[in-house]
């Protein structure tokens, strides 16, 4: 979409116009405007709700919680981006996270020894389990030609059932009413860093992952080759890239990250594996939306992940103080992506008013949005 920035001295109005002509900025404005309307129609005060949301996300313990929740969101977004940018539509992040989470939790709960040993071991176990789970749909596509899009999604429900069964019948903590494992012993919990009143060490891990992704995506041969496969599979094949092997490879990486994040959610956040909690939280799907908004760019994932995390944490404050359900945050996040994917821009509205047709749109590739 061509930017229609004036060549004259920029006035405030033209600056606003230029910002709005950026599709992501416009989509955010669009989503919040629609959210405003929804809150208004359900009889609450949208202005108050939004200001409580902003306050809740950054003031008091809000900033710490926003950073904390950004860990799984950014992590799952990275996992999605690894697959999406090479054209692998992995919708199984949820299952990979759940399976990895249980594996990591069990290792953390039942392995004796010092935290320096148990915590990394739990992470490795979670990563391996997540990778193994991700290999099922990967081989399904390369060996049996079953689309990952469908199989990875269906396996989410199977993962939920299997982990639920294991917790209920083999690792149940009888002392609580939840369907849950025992608590992770204090020694095996992820330590907190002494910043913003105590943020999980996993945040540092996720930032390292972002940096690694930035280097791999932009500066290495395999990063180039995986992206090539995503942009044009036929061309990549023609150029000698082994797309099938790559599909398995990116699924393994995505599953590993998913499993590690699942483990973090247990040993760094909830301290016990509760059946269904990782599913209900919707974190894997929030991560997917973040990856789409950031167009798979690692640094943008960091920014968008913090934004969506703030939306959710602020949403909880909004629910407490303004009687507006935090689920509004989920609606806003999905609406942003709907708007971006529909390529809504300020320019489109202007052109519609003035009439002349735009050029033929090329169909967008997956992940490019």
């Amino acid at each position: 979409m061509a930017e229609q920035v004036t060549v004259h001295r920029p006035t405030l109005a033209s600056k606003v116009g230029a910002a709005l002509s950026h599709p992501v900025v416009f989509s955010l404005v669009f989503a919040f405007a629609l959210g405003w309307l929804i809150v208004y129609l359900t009889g609450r005060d949208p202005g108050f709700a939004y200001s409580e949301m902003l306050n809740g996300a950054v003031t008091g313990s809000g900033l710490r919680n926003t950073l904390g929740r950004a860990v799984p969101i950014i992590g799952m977004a990275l996992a999605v981006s690894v697959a999406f940018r090479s054209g692998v539509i992995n919708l199984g992040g949820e299952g990979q996270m759940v399976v990895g989470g249980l594996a990591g939790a069990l290792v953390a709960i039942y392995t004796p020894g010092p935290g320096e040993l148990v915590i990394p071991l739990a992470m490795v176990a979670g990563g391996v389990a997540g990778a193994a789970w991700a290999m099922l749909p990967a081989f399904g596509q390369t060996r049996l030609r079953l689309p990952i899009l469908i199989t990875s999604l269906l396996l989410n429900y199977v993962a939920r059932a299997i982990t639920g069964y294991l917790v209920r019948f083999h690792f149940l903590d009888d002392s609580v009413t939840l369907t849950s494992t025992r608590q992770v012993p204090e020694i095996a919990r992820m330590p907190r860093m002494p910043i913003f009143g105590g943020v999980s060490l996993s945040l540092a891990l996720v930032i390292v992952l972002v940096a690694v992704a930035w280097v791999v995506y932009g500066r290495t041969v395999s990063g180039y080759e995986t992206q090539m496969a995503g942009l044009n599979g036929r061309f990549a094949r023609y150029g000698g890239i082994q797309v099938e092997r790559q599909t398995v490879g990116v699924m393994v990486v995505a599953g590993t990250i998913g499993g590690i994040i699942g483990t973090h959610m247990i040993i760094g956040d909830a301290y016990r594996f509760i059946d269904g909690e990782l599913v209900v939280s919707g974190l894997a799907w929030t991560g997917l939306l973040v990856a789409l908004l950031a167009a798979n760019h690692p640094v943008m994932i960091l920014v968008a992940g913090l934004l969506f995390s703030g939306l959710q944490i602020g949403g909880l404050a909004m629910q407490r103080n303004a009687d507006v359900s935090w689920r509004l945050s989920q609606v806003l996040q999905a609406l942003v992506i709907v708007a971006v994917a529909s390529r809504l821009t300020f320019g489109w509205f202007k052109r519609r008013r003035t009439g002349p047709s735009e050029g033929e749109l090329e169909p967008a590739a997956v992940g490019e949005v």
Partner: protein
Amino acid sequence: MFEQLFDAALLESVVRAMVPILLAALGGMICERAGVFQIAMEGMMLAGAFAAVAGSYLAVYSGLGVLFGVAAGVLVSLMLAFGTVSRRGDPIVLGIALNLMALGLTGFLLPQIFGVRGTFRHERIDGLDRLPIPGLSDIPWIGPVLFDQTILGYLAFLLVPGIWLILFRTPVGLRLRGVGERPLAAESLGVSPIAYKYGAVIASGVLSGLAGAQLALGNLVLFTEGMSSGRGWVAVVAVMLGRAHPFAVFGASLLFAFAEGLGFRLQGNGLPVQITDALPFLVTLIALIAARKRFARLLDLTTGA
């Protein structure tokens, strides 16, 4: 053992489980025929279920509930049609985002409007009555299984041959398939691909909305957060397995419904709910493997291979 498992009551619960899946799958099939990749049935069904309960609660009349359900399905389908057809957006991204939007919005409206979380049931919610067909419903076995449905159940059955007739025996169906298979050829004959694609997506919105209404007012009389619980995705697979042919899609829907019905039954026989819940999805995966030669098009779409 088998006599305990397979009886008329099992078949009844199979048919009950099938109706929502079949309705949604028929809509997805129409889209597939028109060349629109449609994976938003899960969200449209969920929106339909919520709106159906809201409408029925409002009027204490299930008819208004069904109407609300259809309206909600159509609303989501219009967003999909606008994004994919008018704006040439990615149908996969839009489908996923719309599913999540429906999940969030219904979860938001539930406490905002009805002041409850999780599940909403109320005596004001008027469920869909079963309408036994006099005479036919008394036939042993078949009668209670087939001729004791809600109005939407009968509609779903009639739509299978009905849509077959429209698709393969009328000019409208011919043009719709033409738009899906050879859009340029269709356009050069004066058939507007955009109009037909919009029509197909809106039709799937209507059908998924009805599926939601059947789920929330027919099979149950309540709304639970995320109550479509994967049925819209199972419908996507039913369209793939049935190669977008009405009778084959019916067969695929029946297969998945059978797994769901059997799951309920096994649960009654003491099998853990965690296992029986997974059964429809495991059967779906096995059916996919058995029929794996059929998915070349979707694979092309997602890998560019």
